[in-house]
């Protein structure tokens, strides 16, 4: 158990031990703080600012079977309290990733959750099988189903319960019974609980909520879309209330399913909202761009606010806002 000693404000200098241990199904983590996929690369760059062994885990950028160039630039537009991105899943492909990135994380003792993305159901299956054999440092898979299904007119897997479930059951078949898998859901759906339920029924251990929201910015000088990809994913504090709502709804419907909450977390107080809504862990994305030490800072701030609110253990606060008065 790792606990952090904090002196709460007005606590008359009495140090309080806050236990940040968390449990994602069978997976125990010493901290609920994770990196959000695609916002930390494979950890190396952020390790210059944060001791990555002290956070729960690094969730790596979604990897695909083959190398991928990603989209043309501009890939980014700043928006009020957030940003729009259209990176297009640039990456080196799974071979190079398993040869370089995963061993580096392992050599540093960093707990690693690998995010995978496929063009079709079958690619997800092959990726899952490959990553499953990558060694003990990979403690779980995150399945990024918020990407277009090439076989089905580019419709996003996460937007239909049956295609989301098809991906998850294929991944489950390829990794075996007990290995933790998290389905990463898109908020751009009518009923996120329906998708969540379908993923759980298909064998997901837990759910990661939320991916970016589809958005668009038009450049008023060039009179064209600001992003080369026309539309992009909105992230950052601007989407936080949407994310908290998603975690709240899914936790209310599936209280036993571990949730990784994310979307606009910038401070420990923001993280605390997700915990109260029912997340057992939280991930930090866009905030890393603003503050490369955000992971450590949010972890410390979360301990402090837990202590200030009288929680000696993170576990006691999970879903606390749902309690009946």
């Amino acid at each position, binding site marked *: 158990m790792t606990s952090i000693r904090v002196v709460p404000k007005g606590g008359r200098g009495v140090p309080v031990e806050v236990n940040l241990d968390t449990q994602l199904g069978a997976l125990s983590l010493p901290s609920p703080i994770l990196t959000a996929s*695609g*916002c*930390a*690369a494979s950890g190396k*760059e*952020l390790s*210059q*600012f944060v001791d990555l062994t002290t956070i729960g885990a690094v969730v790596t*950028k979604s990897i695909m079977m*083959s*190398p*991928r*160039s*990603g*989209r*043309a*630039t*501009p*890939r*980014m537009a*700043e928006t*009020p*309290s*957030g*940003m729009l*991105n259209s*990176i*297009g*899943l*640039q*990456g080196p*492909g799974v071979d190079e990733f398993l040869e370089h990135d995963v061993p580096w994380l392992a050599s540093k003792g960093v707990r690693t959750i690998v995010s995978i993305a496929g*063009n079709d159901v079958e690619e997800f299956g092959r990726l899952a099988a490959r990553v499953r054999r990558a060694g003990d440092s990979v403690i779980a898979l995150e399945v990024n189903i918020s990407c*277009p299904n*090439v076989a089905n007119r*580019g419709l996003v897997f996460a937007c239909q319960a049956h295609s989301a479930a098809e991906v998850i059951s294929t991944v489950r078949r390829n990794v075996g019974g007990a290995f933790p898998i998290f389905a990463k859901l898109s908020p751009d759906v009518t009923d996120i609980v329906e998708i969540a339920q379908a993923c759980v029924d298909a064998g997901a251990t837990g759910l990661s909520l939320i991916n970016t929201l589809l958005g668009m910015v038009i450049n008023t000088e060039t009179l064209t879309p600001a992003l*080369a990809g026309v539309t992009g994913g909105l992230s*950052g*504090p601007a989407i936080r209330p949407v994310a908290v709502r998603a975690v709240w709804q899914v936790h209310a419907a599936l209280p036993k399913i571990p949730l990784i909450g994310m979307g606009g977390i*910038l401070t420990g107080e923001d993280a605390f909202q997700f915990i109260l809504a029912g997340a057992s862990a939280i991930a930090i994305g*866009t*905030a*890393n*761009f*603003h*503050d*490369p*030490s955000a992971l450590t800072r949010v972890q410390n701030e979360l301990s402090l606010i837990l202590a200030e609110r009288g929680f000696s253990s993170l576990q006691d606060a999970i879903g606390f806002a749902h309690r009946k008065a």
Partner: protein
Amino acid sequence: MSYQPLQVEGELLSNKRVGAYHLITIVVPGIPERIRPGNFVALSVGGESTSTLLRRSFSVYQAQERGLYGGTLELVIAAHGPGTRWLAALAPHQMLNVVGPLGRPFPIPKDPVHALLVGGGYGSAPLFMLADALRQRGCRVDMALGAASADRLFGALEARRVTNALSIATDDGSLGVQGRVTDAARSILERSSIDVIYACGPMPMLAALSTLGAEFDVMVQCAVEESMACGIGICMTCVLPVRGSDGVVRMSRSCVDGPIFAGDRVLWDSVGTVPEETLGAPKASGH
């Protein structure tokens, strides 16, 4: 060799108007002594409850290891969007979060070569530290500076002090000769034997200089400027197509693989696109 970046809370010491730009000096312990010519820093903007979260990147104009108030960095700010306008309006004592040094510095030759430094607009900013470093190596340093107009030409006086020869060109002829800095560079290449060109400025200028370099068989080290969200290599927004030493074209991150690239490695005509030969480029069928 590059140093590992630090994240430091700095304090604004001064903010002076210089032509169309603002020259800001920040007391920022630990970073100045790590800066090599060509490094940049990334600042957070908008203060504590900012709604503009992305970092803004700036070349380092001067880095003083110790001054009266501790180590300082000087940056040249061109105000255009919300972040740079906020920086340009800063008053002394304002706190500023600084991450740096970032990026690979300009490679400095071991031999005392004859170098031509070309700057466009505020792109001249990193060339002064570079000129000092080259002269310490015994290099001969020529400089060509260009801008739209005199007020956008940063550092003309300073340039005289740190160079052996200086050419200036402005589009409107308000300073130096009327014309393009690339034309000034061409006439320098025609009359002297330049061993290496270092360039910083708008992308079309860098592209034109790379073509000139190829024509005269001179290596051009270009400091590129791509839109950046993080500056530290984790967001993948700042990419451009670059041919590696293995001959393979990749979408390279300008913040960590650059911002200095050899001009003959960048596919200038394809910046803003993904050339077909890029590793992992979309097939005709689309991604």
